């Protein structure tokens, strides 16, 4: 088993990895940028090393420095988390060249799957269904226009090096393509350091259904069922659940087998995710994420399999000790991504200091968080603050549990997506399980204020009473006045037995 692990990440995923490692008795080493000196992942780990200033490009993305710290701290292994360097094949290679274990797949696997056009070629060859589109990137807007005529509108522009919605643009009409192409290239360059963009057919109302796979270094690969991730905004997932309310047991088996074939085609080692678009029983390979996924907890809750623990075990050379037949799904799990974005202003990023944090608890509730009170949320990093995850015997119970947990959640000081999630839990189409990745476009009312008269009245009363108390507190007491006069007159009215005390 790995004995010491450097976690090359921050935020909730770094905390998640530190927790898994500590449970295995592994010494954990955190890294931090200047503003992250007191971030939760630093406080959770056994050791911590500074790696640079706030911008990721000068800290969490500096591969050489991370490897240097790992050597200095005498770490055996590096876990990249997700984002940052997780899917940089050169980093994986450099880690192994330095004599360290990279907790993830081989660098060749990352290369093959990281190049989205190469991945499409390989998947087609392995018999995995793919969306109609290009297997090469396009150089300029003119070439894109020509290619789009063959693929057919609407088309989706995607960063070849990308994932996570960055550098993606849907284009409905040819006249909009050149502008969208420029924007996609800029975003791709900024996010991945590579401006290669390709395009494929955009399906009109598919679901995003992905299969979790787990492989070891001995050639074993299993799948752990699907996650339904259709509730998205601009390709960023907002709500995920397992199982999907849409697919049948037969479809699950077919998609699972395709995902295992996909993983075997690249000799997959560790935890990975094969993403599919699903529409009316058909499914198409979208991409493979060669890393732990943000939404991995919903799979953990329905299968009882600890994915991050298995990442560490597989990286240590252990073989999977179960087979496909042993994987049983139980109940239903839902995850809400709590981000520092304001749903009432179109999900614009919000920054500030978390002045109060109350984390939901109780039966079936899990919180994977990366913030604490006093923590400053800046624009330097991803807006994901934490994940609220619930598990229940049925989908209906899980939804009710999530609504209850969201009601318990308090985050003040910054705006968060929580009020949006709370509304989704009440929304009939979500509750019925009838939705596609178009869900948000079809439910724009979820981005408007729904404040009830009762809530407004309560807020007004609270503000007036607080203000009155505040004024009373700051008033200089008159000479000879007794302490009881401090109690304001309205409150005395509420405590009738106290009248006449003063």
């Amino acid at each position, binding site marked *: 088993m790995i004995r010491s692990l450097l976690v090359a990440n921050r935020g909730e995923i770094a905390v998640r990895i530190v927790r898994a490692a500590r449970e295995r008795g592994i010494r954990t080493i955190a890294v931090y940028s200047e503003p992250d000196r007191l971030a939760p992942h630093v406080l959770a780990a056994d050791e911590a090393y500074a790696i640079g200033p706030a911008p990721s490009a000068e800290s969490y993305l500096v591969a050489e420095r991370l490897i240097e710290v790992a050597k200095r701290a005498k770490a055996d292994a590096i876990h990249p988390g997700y984002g940052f360097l997780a899917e940089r094949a050169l980093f994986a290679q450099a880690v192994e060249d330095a004599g360290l274990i990279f907790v993830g797949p081989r660098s060749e696997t990352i290369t093959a799957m990281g190049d989205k056009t190469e991945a499409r070629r390989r998947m087609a060859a392995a018999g995995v269904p793919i969306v109609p589109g290009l297997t090469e990137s396009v150089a300029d807007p003119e070439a894109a226009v020509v290619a789009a005529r063959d693929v057919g509108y609407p088309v989706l522009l995607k960063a070849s090096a990308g994932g996570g919605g960055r550098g993606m643009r849907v284009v409905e009409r040819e006249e909009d393509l050149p502008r969208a192409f420029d924007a996609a290239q800029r975003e791709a360059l900024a996010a991945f350091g590579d401006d290669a963009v390709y395009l494929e057919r955009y399906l009109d109302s598919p679901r995003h259904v992905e299969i979790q796979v787990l492989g070891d270094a001995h050639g074993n690969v299993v799948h752990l069922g699907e996650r339904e991730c259709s509730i998205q905004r601009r390709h960023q997932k907002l709500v995920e659940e397992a199982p999907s309310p849409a697919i049948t047991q037969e479809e699950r088996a077919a998609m699972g087998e395709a995902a295992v074939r996909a993983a075997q085609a690249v000799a997959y080692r560790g935890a990975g995710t094969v993403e599919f678009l699903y529409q009316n029983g058909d499914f198409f390979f979208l991409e493979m994420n060669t890393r732990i996924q943000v939404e991995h907890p919903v799979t953990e809750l329905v299968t009882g399999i600890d994915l991050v623990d298995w990442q560490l075990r597989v990286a240590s050379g252990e073989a999977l000790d179960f087979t496909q037949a042993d994987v049983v799904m139980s109940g239903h799990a839902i995850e809400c991504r709590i981000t520092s974005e304001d749903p009432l202003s179109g999900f614009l990023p919000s920054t500030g200091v978390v002045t109060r944090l109350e984390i939901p608890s109780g039966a079936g509730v899990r919180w994977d968080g990366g913030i604490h009170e006093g923590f400053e949320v800046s624009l330097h990093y991803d807006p994901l603050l934490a994940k609220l995850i619930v598990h229940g015997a049925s989908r209906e119970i899980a939804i009710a549990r999530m609504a209850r947990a969201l009601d318990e959640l308090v985050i003040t000081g910054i705006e968060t997506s929580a009020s949006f999630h709370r509304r989704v839990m009440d929304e009939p189409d979500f509750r019925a399980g009838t939705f596609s990745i178009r869900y948000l476009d079809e439910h724009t009312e979820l981005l408007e204020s729904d*404040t009830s008269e009762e809530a407004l009245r309560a807020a007004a*009363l*609270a503000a007036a009473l*607080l203000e009155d108390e505040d004024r009373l507190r700051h008033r200089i007491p008159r000479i000879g006045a007794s302490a009881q006069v401090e109690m304001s007159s309205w409150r005395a009215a509420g405590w009738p037995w106290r009248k006449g005390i003063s």
Partner: protein
Amino acid sequence: MIYYVAVGERTFVVELGPDGVKLDGDVVEVDLAHVDGTAVSNLLVDHVSHRIVARGTGSGRWSLHSRGRRFEAEVLDERARTIREMTGGSSGPIGPRPLKAPMPGLVVKVEVEVGDVVEAGQGIAIVEAMKMENELKAAGPGRVHAIHVTAGDTVEKDQLLVEFVALDEEGAE
């Protein structure tokens, strides 16, 4: 004591007197209690419980959280309200609303030039924040009067980006 409380688009009149509390003239039974050393309060309105996290931001302004909702309230007493009325407060915008940065970020592109006629909803500028590009759109029709930023500029929240003049106003020039 009478307070005028503005919350969202609404203004409520809250009277605190020796006979209790009135909200917009109706008697309500209220109690407000605080958890010591925290910003947590519990408000009972006719026994209906509201768990509130409140923060005073000065001059009668309160930021309140309850059940995942945030409320910004401003509490004025009669005197403050009279002064506010006499000084007129804000006289309302003249012409199309200027475009301001809704969050701090980096200007990636300005999509208009001075003199351009824009329609409501037309993309004006792209500002990148948290690695995502956000297209800022015109609130209404108008002609671009002044542009205060260029691509590559870092902007603060509420910084003025682009100003417009109304098309009819301009016709009168």
